[in-house]
């Protein structure tokens, strides 16, 4: 089965347009069980992922799933293994141990098909200094085999306020502009799964607002989204589920509500308190989507 490029519709549309469709997205107040009904099938499945650098274990036996329409926030202290996890999942780093399935495709055995279902926004996007903004979209569309991408490209450029910069070369863009361009490039193929590493770094307040709206919209349109960030407010605001990693190991996997109940013992704790508490201890708490507490 090949992942058809541009299979999902409405990614370029606004959040309001998207939410007009009859769709029930999980909120923080929702509890388990409701989510499993609202969310689609598992689009990203990671099983027993491990990565070692000589004697150092960067990622240790990590497993998690992300469903269509779900936003998974990956948290962890510096050096916890977040970027290594994301890079392994998108095929940038070779898989040493474990398995990754994207849209049902095995990342190793069906590498090209799996990667066609994926989009990746690295922490420091490096655009080609000789391609214009618009040509980056053209290149990405050709790379992913997307046809009739032009209208969608225009929508993305408008959404991320890059219309005036469409003829600017990649080498002339500021850090924030590069980040916006990386969003546009990852959105253009309308992927099943989007992974973002520190997606808001370098963006101005208006850019942050646009990025947040776009992330919500892309999830609402049915993509499985994984965000790794140190910005706890961002994760708290956007993520449906949390994956907290410490020293390469999973220490929590569940919703914010579950985290509040199981880790903080109350329903009001902020994510910051939960994060600090969880990363101080190494107890693994894995709460799968379809299991109620």
């Amino acid at each position: 089965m090949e992942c058809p490029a541009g299979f999902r519709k409405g990614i370029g549309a606004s959040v309001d347009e998207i939410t007009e469709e009859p769709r029930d997205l999980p909120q923080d107040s929702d509890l388990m069980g409701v989510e499993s009904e609202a969310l689609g099938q598992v689009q990203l499945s990671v099983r027993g992922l491990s990565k070692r650098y000589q004697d150092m274990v960067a990622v240790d036996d990590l497993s998690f799933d992300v469903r269509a329409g779900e936003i998974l926030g990956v948290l962890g202290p510096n050096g916890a293994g977040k970027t290594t996890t994301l890079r392994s999942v998108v095929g940038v780093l070779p898989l040493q141990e474990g398995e990754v399935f994207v849209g049902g495709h095995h990342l190793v055995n069906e590498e090209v098909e799996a990667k066609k279902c994926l989009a990746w926004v690295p922490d420091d996007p490096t655009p080609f200094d000789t391609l214009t903004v618009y040509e980056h979209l053209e290149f990405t569309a050709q790379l992913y085999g997307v046809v009739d991408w032009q209208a969608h490209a225009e929508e993305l450029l408008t959404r991320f306020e890059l219309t005036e910069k469409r003829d600017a070369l990649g080498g002339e863009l500021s850090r924030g502009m590069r980040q916006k361009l990386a969003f546009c490039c990852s959105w253009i193929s309308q992927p099943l799964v989007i992974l973002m590493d520190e997606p808001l770094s370098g963006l101005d307040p208006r850019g942050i607002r646009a990025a947040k709206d776009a992330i919500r919209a892309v999830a609402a349109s049915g993509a499985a989204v994984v965000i790794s960030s140190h910005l706890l407010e961002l994760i708290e605001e956007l993520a449906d589920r949390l994956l907290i990693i410490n020293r390469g190991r999973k220490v929590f996997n569940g919703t914010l509500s579950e985290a509040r109940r199981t880790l903080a013992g109350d329903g009001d704790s902020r994510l910051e308190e939960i994060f600090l508490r969880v990363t101080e201890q190494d107890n693994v708490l894995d709460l799968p989507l379809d299991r109620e507490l």
Partner: protein
Amino acid sequence: MKFRGALRRQTRKLKTLSGCLFAAIGLLLTGGWLATLLIGRRAFESEPMAPEEILPIAQFGICVLACLSLITAASVRGVYMPQQDIERLFAAPVSRANILRYRMLVDLGRGLFGSLVLGAVTFSRLPKPLFGVLGIMLTVLSTGILRQFFSLLMASAGNRFDRFLRGRSMLFMRIVVGVGVWGLVMFVVMGEKLLGKIFGSVHFVGGLEELLAHPVSQGLLAPALPWARMMTAGNWPEFLTWAATCLFIGLALFEVTARLRIDYREMALETSDRIATRLRQVRRGGLFSGGKASSRTTGWRLPKIFGRGPMGAVAWIKWVSMIRKARGTLIIGLLIVVGVSVGVTFLLRQDQGMSNPGEALVGSSLIAMVGILYLCGALRFDFRADLDRMVQIKAWPVSSRRVFLGTLLPVVTLISVMLGAAIWLRLALLGLHDPVAEVIPLVLPLLTFAWLAVENIVYLFAPVRYVPGQEGSLHHTGRAIVLVLLRLLLMAVVLGLVGICAGLVYNIGPEYFGLGEQEAMWLSMACGFDVLLLVDYGLYHAGGRMLKRFDVARDQG
């Protein structure tokens, strides 16, 4: 502190086995090179020149060094300091004079090695080698201070004549000074022999000695006299007297430079930023193809000449890079092609006994080999320019083999077209005819691909991005040399394989298949072509595998 840091970095690299090995190779080769210079000059050069004979030449050399300092100062206005130094020192409670003193001392430390090499190259011609080497070292170090002095004056002038210094007039001045210095150097190297060849029996100047003996030249060279006297001193009292004088002048210039009332901060920020950008570009894509892209062509619709599939897209971005960096690409490419073609023709024309077809074949083969070697080194539109982008490239939904091929295809095409045109044009212009020589351009794409594939496979295996002035250079030198040898070895295997197969067919063809010499030659060429095709296919797979195993977390160069 900085020295301690550099030393620590070097010793840390020595803690691993590969670090030790590469550093040892680097040390061995650098030491060996210096020893060759010292022994070679001593063994093969003629006797030292007389002081009165060498004195004007030494003055001339010092003036050339000073001129080069002036040219460098024009492009490095103010003070060049790495970004981390600027951030710490400019904000620290340190006077601007002390910052300058620190910077000049760092430059002097770095200049020591260069002065030692220059001393090793020239000492055998000087009356007393020890005085010569010491004198040259002191002179080179003084030139460094002079360069800083000029840089500050340029910074001051830059504030007043900014438009002039940034405009084309400055570029024109630099070109004039550069051409002038180049002309002088050529005159020194070739002298009357060259002029005689160009202008026949017309007598211009008897040579360098006569030119330097002219009163005008002597007047121009007079400021360099103390340093020249120091280098050419014949005894200790004379050397010490002139060395003390030069030391005094050097120290005075050092202090005057440090105390100049010029606020260089803004200019230093700009200069350092510009040099850092240039170094980044060099690290990414070499000196020429790493240059800035021109925005004039952003409105052009560049055709997708390598197809509309994913591999075509990969090739398209390289093709666009070449067009947008055409100034650097084409100028340097054409310079190399013309230089190689003219050089080869000049070299072969010296050998009057060579036949017409012989000259055609040898010349075309030489242009192909030397051209590929130089163009592949200069035009880096391949993975050597993409190391910072590997995190994105590895996520592309294209097989690594296709990415490898798509990346190399445009540059292979460009080099093949350039060299093919040069070969055919040369044959046509010189009226040379040889069927084999005329076919060589058709083999160029395969040969170029083989060379570039080997180059990139080795690069992906162990990416080394050495930039002059980088820390840990000994380790990098050793590593780079080992990798160059590995590339040459692989290329020798490739060419050897092709040569053996073609030679075998050529030798057994007449005997086993009853072919004539001409037929056997064509058959052997076809066989060589097929073997090269197979080798290229193997390299395409090997390149894909190497790209697949490339670990962005480890292989950052």
